[in-house]
C-alpha cells in the first residue's frame, strides 16, 4: 500500500504541467528567500491564495516547493550581501560574507546549496523514520522547558556572535527580549509600553526589525566615499565544493539531526536550527577562532541545520496539527484550506498524505539544488555592481518588505528606527543576531514563564525537578558561569587536576 501511495505521488509530480509548476514554485521560493525582507512565511502565505483553485495534491506540492526554496534562497543574500534573506540564514552570513569578500562567494553558495539539499533530504528521512519519536519528545516540552529554551537560545546566540565578549551578545539579546514585550501581552491582553500609540498595541513586527538591523548598517556603509564593490568572484571547481561536503559528512549528519529536532519543537523554527547547528560545529572544531572569519564548515552546519528544520517543522504539523515554525503554521492553514486534516487522525482519514508530502519534499529539494546552483552564477554577478548604487536600490526593496507584513507605513518607520539601532550596534561592536532572536523568542518566554508559575502557584521548584528543564538549566549555567572570574578561579584547581592527569 505504501509503494502505491509513493508511486501515485511520483505520478502527480512528473505530470509535465505539475512538474513545471513545482519548478516555478521552487524558483519563486528561492527569489523570495534571496530578496531581503521577503520571508518563507510570506512566500507560503502569498502563494496559498493563488493555489485556491488548484487540486489538493498539486496545491500542497507547490506550497512545499516554495517553502523549501525560500529557506534555501536566504543563504544567497546572506553570503553575498551580509543581509540574511530570511531569519533562518542569519547564521550563514557569519562565515558566508567574509568568504564572499575574499572572492569565494560562488564556492560559498555552492556549498550552501549542497548543504541545504542534504539538510532537507536528511530531514525527509527523519520525517519518515522518526516521526513518532520526535513527536513524543516535543510533547514533553511544557511551559518550563519552553521558557528555558528561549533563554538558552539567547545565551547560545550571544556566545556565538559576540566575537569573544559574550556579555555584549547577551546584552543585545536581552534588549531584543525587552523590545518583544511591546504590545498586548498574550496572557491577559494587557497593553505594555505602547505609550498611547495604537500601532504598537499589536506588538513589534519581526520583519521590520530584521530588515533594519541587518540591512541598514550595510546600506549606510555604502554611502562612504570611495567604497567600491567589495565582492569579487573567482572561479571554483565543483570538485572543490564536493570535497568540502565529503569532509563535512559528520557535520552534515549532526546538523541535520539538530535542525530537524529544533524544527519539530513548536515555536522554535529554522533560525534556531541553523544557530544551534553552527554552535555545535564551532564547539567541536579544531580552530574555533577562525569561525566568523570565513570558515566554510560554518556555512555547511548553518545551512544543513536550517533546512533540516523544514522537515522537522512538518513532523508536528502532520502528527499533531501543531506547526513547528511560522512558515509551517501557514502551511498548516493551507492544508486545511485544501481539505486535509493533519493531526492524529491523518493516517486513518488520508493515509496517502504523508507519502505525498515526502515525495513532494524530495523532488522539491532536488529542484532547489539544481536551480539555486544555476541561479548563484547570476546572483554573484549582481554583486559586481557598485555597492553605492546597489544598496540604495535594495533599500527600496526593503521598504516594500517591511510594508507588506501588515500593509502599513508604520512598519516602514519601524524598520528605519531599528535600522538606526542596527547602525549604532554595529558601531559599538554589539552583535545584531541575539537582538533579533530576543525579539523572536521574547513573547514565547513571557507567556510560558508566567503560565508555568501560575499553574504551580508561583513555585519555581518544577524548573529543577523536571529532567528536561534541569538539563537546560545546567546547559545555560555551563555557558554563563565561565564568564565570571570568580567561577573560573573556583574551577581552576579542578581544571589543573584534569590537565595534570592528562599529562601524567
Amino acid at each position, binding site marked *: 500500500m505504501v509503494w502505491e501511495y509513493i508511486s501515485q505521488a511520483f505520478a502527480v509530480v512528473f505530470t509535465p504541467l505539475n512538474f513545471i509548476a513545482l519548478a516555478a514554485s521552487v524558483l519563486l521560493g528561492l527569489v523570495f528567500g534571496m530578496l531581503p525582507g521577503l520571508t518563507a512565511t510570506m512566500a507560503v502565505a*502569498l502563494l496559498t491564495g493563488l493555489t485556491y483553485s488548484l487540486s489538493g495534491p498539486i496545491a500542497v506540492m507547490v506550497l512545499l516547493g516554495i517553502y523549501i526554496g525560500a529557506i534555501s534562497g536566504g543563504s544567497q543574500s546572506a553570503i553575498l550581501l551580509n543581509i540574511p534573506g530570511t531569519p533562518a540564514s542569519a547564521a550563514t552570513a557569519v562565515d558566508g560574507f*567574509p568568504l564572499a569578500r*575574499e572572492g569565494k562567494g560562488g564556492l560559498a553558495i555552492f556549498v550552501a546549496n549542497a548543504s541545504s539539499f542534504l539538510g532537507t533530504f536528511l530531514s525527509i528521512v527523519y520525517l519518515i523514520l522518526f516521526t513518532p519519536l520526535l513527536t513524543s519528545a516535543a510533547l514533553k516540552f511544557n511551559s518550563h522547558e519552553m521558557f528555558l529554551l528561549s533563554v538558552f537560545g539567547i545565551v547560545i546566540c550571544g556566545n556565538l556572535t559576540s566575537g*569573544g*565578549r559574550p*556579555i*555584549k551578545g547577551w*546584552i543585545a539579546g*536581552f534588549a531584543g527580549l525587552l523590545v518583544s*514585550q511591546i504590545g498586548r501581552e498574550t496572557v*491577559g491582553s*494587557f497593553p*505594555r*509600553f505602547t505609550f498611547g500609540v495604537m500601532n504598537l498595541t499589536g506588538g513589534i513586527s519581526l520583519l521590520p526589525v530584521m530588515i533594519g538591523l541587518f540591512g541598514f548598517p550595510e546600506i*549606510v*556603509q*555604502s*554611502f*562612504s*566615499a570611495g567604497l567600491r564593490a567589495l565582492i569579487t568572484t573567482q572561479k571554483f571547481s565543483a570538485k572543490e565544493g564536493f570535497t568540502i561536503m565529503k*569532509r563535512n559528512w559528520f557535520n552534515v549528519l549532526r546538523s541535520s539531526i539538530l535542525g530537524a529536532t529544533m524544527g519539530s519543537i513548536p515555536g522554535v523554527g529554522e533560525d534556531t536550527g541553523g544557530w544551534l547547528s553552527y554552535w555545535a560545529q564551532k564547539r567541536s572544531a*579544531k*580552530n574555533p*577562532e*577562525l569561525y566568523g*572569519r*570565513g*570558515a*566554510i*564548515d560554518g556555512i555547511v552546519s548553518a545551512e544543513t541545520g536550517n533546512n533540516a528544520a523544514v522537515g522537522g517543522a512538518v513532523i508536528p504539523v502532520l502528527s499533531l496539527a501543531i506547526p513547528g515554525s511560522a512558515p509551517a503554521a501557514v502551511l498548516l492553514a493551507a492544508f486545511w484550506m485544501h481539505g486535509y486534516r493533519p493531526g492524529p487522525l491523518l493516517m486513518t482519514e488520508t493515509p496517502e498524505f504523508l507519502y505525498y508530502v515526502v515525495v513532494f519534499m524530495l523532488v522539491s529539494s532536488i529542484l532547489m539544488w539544481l536551480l539555486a546552483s544555476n541561479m548563484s552564477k547570476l546572483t554573484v554577478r549582481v554583486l559586481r555592481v*557598485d555597492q*553605492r*548604487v546597489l544598496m*540604495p*536600490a535594495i*533599500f*527600496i*526593496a526593503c*521598504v*516594500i518588505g517591511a*510594508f*507588506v507584513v501588515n*500593509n502599513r507605513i508604520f512598519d*516602514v*518607520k519601524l524598520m*528605519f528606527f531599528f535600522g538606526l539601532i542596527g*547602525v549604532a550596534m554595529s*558601531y*559599538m*561592536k554589539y552583535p545584531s543576531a541575539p537582538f533579533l532572536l530576543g525579539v523572536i523568542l*521574547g513573547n514565547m518566554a*513571557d507567556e510560558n*514563564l*508566567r503560565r508555568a*508559575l501560575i499553574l504551580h502557584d508561583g513555585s519555581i521548584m518544577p524548573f529543577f525537578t523536571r529532567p528536561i528543564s534541569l538539563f537546560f538549566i545546567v546547559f545555560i549555567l555551563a555557558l554563563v558561569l*565561565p*564568564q565570571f572570574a570568580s567561577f*573560573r578561579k573556583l574551577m*581552576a584547581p579542578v*581544571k589543573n587536576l584534569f590537565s595534570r592527569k592528562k599529562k601524567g
Partner: protein
Amino acid sequence: MSEENTKAVEKRAQEEVPEAAVTEIERDAYGFEVVDNTKTAHQDFLTAVILMVVSITVIIVSLGYWKKQNVTFYASAGFVPVLFSSGLLIMCIRLLRESLQSDSTKNMLARIKKGAIASVKSNIVHRSIIGLAIFGVYVFFMLGKMPFWLASFLALSAVLIFVRFDKTLKTVLKMLLIAALCVAGIVLLFQYAFNVPMP
C-alpha cells in the same frame, strides 16, 4: 577543516586583523579568548550607562503595570519585563565595571568627547548622515503622501546622485536613468509579478 582551508582562512584573518591578534590568541584559564577591551572601553561605558537608564525606566514602568492590574506579581504583565530588564541592568553594571577597570571615569568622558568631535569632523559620518537623512525624509514625509513610484524615484535619484556626485551632467543623467530603471523593476517585480501591495 582541512589543512588547506585552515591555512586559507588563517591567511585571510591575518590580512584583516592586526598580526598580534591572530598569531597568538590569548586564552584564559577556561579556554575563552581574552579580548582587548581597552579600545572599546569608552563605547562600552556609554552604552552601559544608556542601557542602565533604559532598564531602570522599564522596571519602574513595569512595576506600575503590576499595581494597575492588581494581581499576583508573577501573573502580572510587568513581571517578565522586570525580570528581563533586571538581567539587562546586571549585565550593564558588569560591562560598566569592566570598562572602568581599563580607565578612570574622567578619562572615559574625555575619550567620549574626543570621539564625538572626531565623528562630527569625519567625512564618512557626514556622508552617512546625509544619506540617512534623504531616506528619512522618504520614509517619514514622502511615503503614503505621493505615489510610491514617484517617492521612490525621487529618493533613489537623490541618494544615487549624492553618492556618485562628480560635478558632471553625464553622471547625473546616468544616475537618474539607473534610479528610474530600479524603481520600474522593483514595481514590476513586486506589484505585478508577486501581486504585493505597494506603500
